[in-house]
C-alpha cells in the first residue's frame, strides 16, 4: 500500500509549490469575504431556530420569522451562502497554483462572485416571504435556480479553462475532485430543482432524494475532500502518503454515491427493491471513505506533534475524524433495523451537522486560515484567537452532535413504544434541546472569533516581504 511517488517526473504526491505566475486572487478574496459574512449572519438565524425549540413562542407573531421559514434560510444560507461559496473561493486559489498558471479569467471570477451574492440575498428575501419551492435543499424559487445554473457555468468555465491551460500534465488529486464536483453538480442540481417539477408523488420524492443525497455526496464531499487533500500536505509540509490510494478513493466515490438516494425513504412508501439497492450501495460507501481516511492518517505519520501548534492542521485532522464518523453513521442508518429507531428523529440533525459543520466547514475554515494571510501577504491577526476558535467549534460541535444522538436515539426508542403519547416524547426532549442551544452559542462564538480574526487580518494588515 505505501507508495511514495508517482510518475517520477515530479512527485505527484507533493503539492507543487513553485508558482512563477503572479496570482492576484481577486476572485478568491471576494468569495471568501462574502462567505464569511454569511457564516456570521446565518449563524444568528441558526441560534434563533435552536431557541425556538426551547421557547416556541419566541418571535411567534411575526410571519417572516416563523420556524418554517427560518429553517430553510438556515440550511440554504449555510450550504450555499457560507460553505459552497467558501469552497469555491478556495478552489479559485488552489487550481491556478496546482496548474502552474494564472486563473483563466479574474474578471469572470469577480462577476461570478457578484452573481453569487445576488443569489444569496435573493434567497434571504424569498424564503422569509414564504416563497418556498417545497423541496429540501431545493427551496429556492425558479428564477434564483436559474441564476445558480448561470453562476455554476461561469465557475466551470473558469476552472476548466485554467485546467486546460495547465503547465503540469499530471493532475494532483484535488483537481480530480474539483472536476468531479463541477461535472456532477451540473446534473445533480437540475435534477433536484427542475426535473422534480415534471413528476409527482413518490417518483418526485425519489428524484428529490437523489438530489439531496448527492448535494452532499457529489457536491460538498468532492469539493471538500479536494480542499483537504491540498491543505493537509501544505500545512503539514509533508508529502501525501499515496497518490494511488487517493485515486482509488475518488473512483469508488464516483461509482457508489449516486445509487443511494432512496435510503431517505426506508420503510416508507417506495418500492422495497429500490430500498435494498440503496442500502447495499450505502454500505459500500465505506470503501471510498476508508481510502481517504487511511491516506490522511498515513500522511500524518511522524508529524503528529505539529497538531499542537498548527491551527489549520487541527481543523483538517478533526474534520477527517468527523468525516470518518459521519460516513460510518450513514451506512449504519441505512440498515433497516437501525433506521427503524433513528430515522426522523433528532439524531439526524446531529449526523447532518457533523458532516457539514464538523467535517466540511472545518476543511473550509482550515483553508481560509491558511490562504488569507498569504493572499494579502501578511500574518494572521492572532494565532491564539484562531486556536480559541478551534476549541469553540470543537466543544460546541461535540456538545451539539452528542446530545442530539443520545436524545434522538432515546426519542426513537420511545416512538417505537406506542403506549407513550407523542407529546410526552416532545417534553422528554426539552433538556436535549436546551443543551443543543447552548452548544450552538459556543459554535457561534467560534464563528465570531474566526470571522473577527480574518477581518482583523485583512483590515489591519501590515505587508511582509515574504
Amino acid at each position, binding site marked *: 500500500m505505501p507508495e511514495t511517488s508517482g510518475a517520477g517526473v515530479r512527485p505527484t504526491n507533493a503539492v507543487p509549490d513553485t508558482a512563477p505566475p503572479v496570482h492576484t486572487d481577486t476572485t478568491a478574496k471576494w468569495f471568501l469575504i462574502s462567505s464569511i459574512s454569511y457564516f456570521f449572519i446565518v449563524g444568528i438565524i441558526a441560534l434563533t431556530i435552536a431557541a425556538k425549540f426551547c421557547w*416556541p413562542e419566541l418571535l411567534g407573531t411575526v410571519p417572516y420569522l416563523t420556524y418554517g421559514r427560518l429553517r430553510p434560510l438556515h440550511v440554504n444560507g449555510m450550504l450555499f451562502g457560507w460553505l459552497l461559496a467558501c469552497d469555491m473561493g478556495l478552489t479559485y486559489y488552489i487550481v491556478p497554483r496546482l496548474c502552474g498558471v494564472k486563473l483563466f479569467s479574474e474578471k469572470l471570477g469577480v462577476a461570478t462572485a457578484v452573481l453569487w451574492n445576488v443569489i444569496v440575498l435573493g434567497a434571504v428575501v424569498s424564503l422569509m416571504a414564504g416563497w418556498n419551492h*417545497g423541496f429540501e435543499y431545493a427551496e429556492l424559487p425558479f428564477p434564483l435556480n436559474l441564476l445558480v445554473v448561470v453562476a455554476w457555468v461561469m465557475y466551470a468555465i473558469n476552472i476548466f479553462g485554467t485546467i486546460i491551460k495547465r503547465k503540469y500534465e499530471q493532475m494532483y488529486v484535488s483537481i480530480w475532485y474539483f*472536476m468531479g464536483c463541477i461535472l456532477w453538480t451540473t446534473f445533480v442540481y437540475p435534477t433536484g430543482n427542475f426535473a422534480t417539477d415534471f413528476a409527482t408523488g413518490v*417518483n418526485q420524492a425519489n428524484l428529490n432524494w437523489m438530489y439531496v443525497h448527492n448535494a452532499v455526496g457529489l457536491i460538498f464531499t468532492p469539493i471538500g475532500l479536494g480542499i483537504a487533500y491540498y491543505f493537509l500536505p501544505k500545512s503539514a509540509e509533508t508529502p501525501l502518503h499515496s497518490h*494511488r490510494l487517493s485515486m*482509488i478513493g475518488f473512483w469508488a466515490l*464516483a461509482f457508489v454515491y449516486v445509487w443511494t438516494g432512496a435510503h431517505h425513504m426506508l420503510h416508507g412508501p417506495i418500492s422495497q427493491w429500490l430500498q435494498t439497492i440503496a442500502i447495499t450501495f450505502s454500505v459500500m460507501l465505506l470503501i471510498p471513505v476508508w481510502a481517504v481516511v487511511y491516506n490522511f492518517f498515513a500522511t500524518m505519520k511522524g508529524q503528529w506533534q505539529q497538531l499542537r501548534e498548527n491551527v489549520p492542521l487541527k481543523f483538517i485532522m478533526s474534520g477527517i475524524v468527523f468525516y470518518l464518523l459521519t460516513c460510518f453513521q450513514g451506512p449504519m442508518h441505512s440498515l433497516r433495523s437501525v433506521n427503524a429507531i433513528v430515522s426522523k428523529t433528532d439524531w439526524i440533525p446531529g449526523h447532518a451537522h457533523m458532516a457539514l459543520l464538523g467535517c466540511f466547514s472545518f476543511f473550509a475554515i482550515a483553508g481560509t486560515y491558511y490562504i488569507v494571510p498569504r493572499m494579502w501577504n501578511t500574518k494572521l491577526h492572532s494565532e491564539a484567537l484562531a486556536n480559541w476558535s478551534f476549541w469553540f467549534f470543537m466543544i460546541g460541535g461535540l456538545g451539539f452532535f452528542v446530545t442530539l444522538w443520545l436524545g434522538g436515539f432515546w426519542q426513537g426508542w420511545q416512538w417505537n413504544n406506542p403506549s407513550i403519547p*407523542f407529546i410526552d416524547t*416532545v417534553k422528554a426532549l426539552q433538556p436535549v434541546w436546551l443543551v443543543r442551544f447552548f452548544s450552538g452559542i459556543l459554535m457561534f462564538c467560534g464563528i465570531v472569533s474566526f470571522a473577527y480574526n480574518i477581518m482583523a487580518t485583512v483590515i489591519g494588515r501590515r505587508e511582509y516581504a515574504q
Partner: protein
Amino acid sequence: MLSRADNSATFAVGAALAFFFLGGLLTTVVPPMVDKSWSRPAPGLKKYTPEQLKGRAIYVREGCWYCHTQQTRTLVADTKRSGWKGVDSPISTPDEFVYDTPHMFGTKRTGPDLSRVGGKYDTQWHKTHFRNPRDLVPGSIMPPFPWIADKPEELGALIAYIQTLGRAKDWRPDQDYEK
C-alpha cells in the same frame, strides 16, 4: 485506468460521467417504469379542489413539512400511532400520493406524522390549535400561526387540506369523527 485518467482530462471526465449516469438512470428513471403503482392513483384517491390546493400551498409556505412527515411506514409503531380508537392505520402506499406536488413526505418528526390526520379533529380544534398550540396541548413546541387563524379564507383552506390527508383509504372505524 487509474494512470490514464491521471493524465487525460477528457478520459477522466468521460469516466466520471459514465459512472454517474449508470447509477443515476437506474435509480431514478427506471424505477417508475418498473413499478406502476408510483403513478396509478389509488381507487379512493380524489383530486384536490382549488381550495384544498390553496391550503396545501400554505402548508408548503409555512414549512409545516419540516416538522411533520406524511407517511405511515411499514413499522408497527407507525400504524399504531397513526391509528384511531384502537384501530391500526393502513400503511402508506405510493398510489395515495400521485396528485402530490411538491411531495410532502418529510424527513423529520418534530411533531406527529400527519399521513392519517384527516378527520381526526374538527375545524374548531384546528382553529384553536393554529392560534396557539399550547392552549390545547401543553408542552407542544409547534409555532403559533395567528396570521393564519385571523384570516378566515386561509384558515379554511388549510383545514380543508388537512382533512384530506389519508382519506384515500377508508379505514376509520366510525364515520363521525369530524365533530
